[in-house]
């Protein structure tokens, strides 16, 4: 049996697939439910909090401010009212103090972000929060707000 033509065709196909093959890099994602900004003291939310026997959302929210440095880098992080280190390991350690302390009610955070901050720096902070929420066995509940310019 003459299989040389079939082999030729198989090699042609192989060449095509090798040339068009572009392996996709491994991508991950953070899933979020982002609601539009509403006043935190809205009656609907208050009613839902009362019904679920929870503290009001504003008391459960850990406010975090991210200020940009030169070139859109992360200049300063303020958790609550306290400035914390910007290196990932130290930031996570600080966040653990807030999220793992059973006497503190925090189960969500609002990131107030400088408009000039680079997206990669924001993701670095989200990554740290995600890790800390995970260690505290709480669902990562993160939302964003834009800081007014010059704030």
């Amino acid at each position: 049996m003459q299989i040389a033509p079939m082999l030729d065709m198989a090699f042609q196909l192989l060449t095509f697939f090798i040339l068009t093959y572009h392996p996709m890099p491994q991508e991950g994602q953070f899933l979020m439910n982002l609601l539009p900004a509403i006043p935190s003291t809205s009656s609907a939310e208050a009613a839902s909090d009362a019904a679920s026997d929870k503290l009001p959302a504003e008391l459960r929210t850990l406010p975090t401010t991210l200020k940009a440095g030169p070139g859109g880098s992360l200049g300063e992080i303020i958790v609550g009212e306290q400035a914390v280190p910007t290196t990932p390991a130290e930031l996570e350690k600080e966040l653990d103090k807030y999220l793992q302390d059973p006497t503190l009610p925090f189960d969500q955070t609002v990131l107030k972000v400088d408009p000039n901050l680079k997206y990669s720096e924001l993701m670095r902070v989200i990554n740290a929060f995600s890790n800390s929420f995970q260690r505290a066995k709480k669902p990562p509940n993160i939302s964003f707000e834009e800081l007014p310019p010059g704030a």
Partner: protein
Amino acid sequence: MSAQMSTELKAEPNLTPLLDVVFQLITFFMLMINFSSDNYDRRITLPVAGSARPIEDDRQVDEDRLVLNIDKDGHLLMGGEVQPIHQAVQTIKRQADLIKLNLKAAGKKLDTSGSLPTTIVLRADRDTSFSSVHELIKACQSNGFRKFALKAMNS
């Protein structure tokens, strides 16, 4: 006599194992080819976040998704076009209207809050400023999108 012997001795290589290997390779490349990568723009360099979950492991993301690629200048890359922010807002509105029409045609109703079931997959460049990303997030929110997936590289 010697001429007759030389015509009978044929040395043909056995090509079957080679063909087997080639077909195995073809099968591998056919299975690995990713036809769904059309939405994933290679001009975007994603930020790195170690705890971003791989898509395969996640069952919460619906099949219904809208991918938004945002370049480092804050422009939306969609349908082969580079759209500035005001045009991007219009595009998002059009997409939301289409999704609402599709839901209506399928006889599905929106929930009381009017939120759409579609997940917005945000693939923003690592050097994009937050203000550009936030503008698009706000545009999505005002058109009824609530579910977001922020993309990052695992390592």
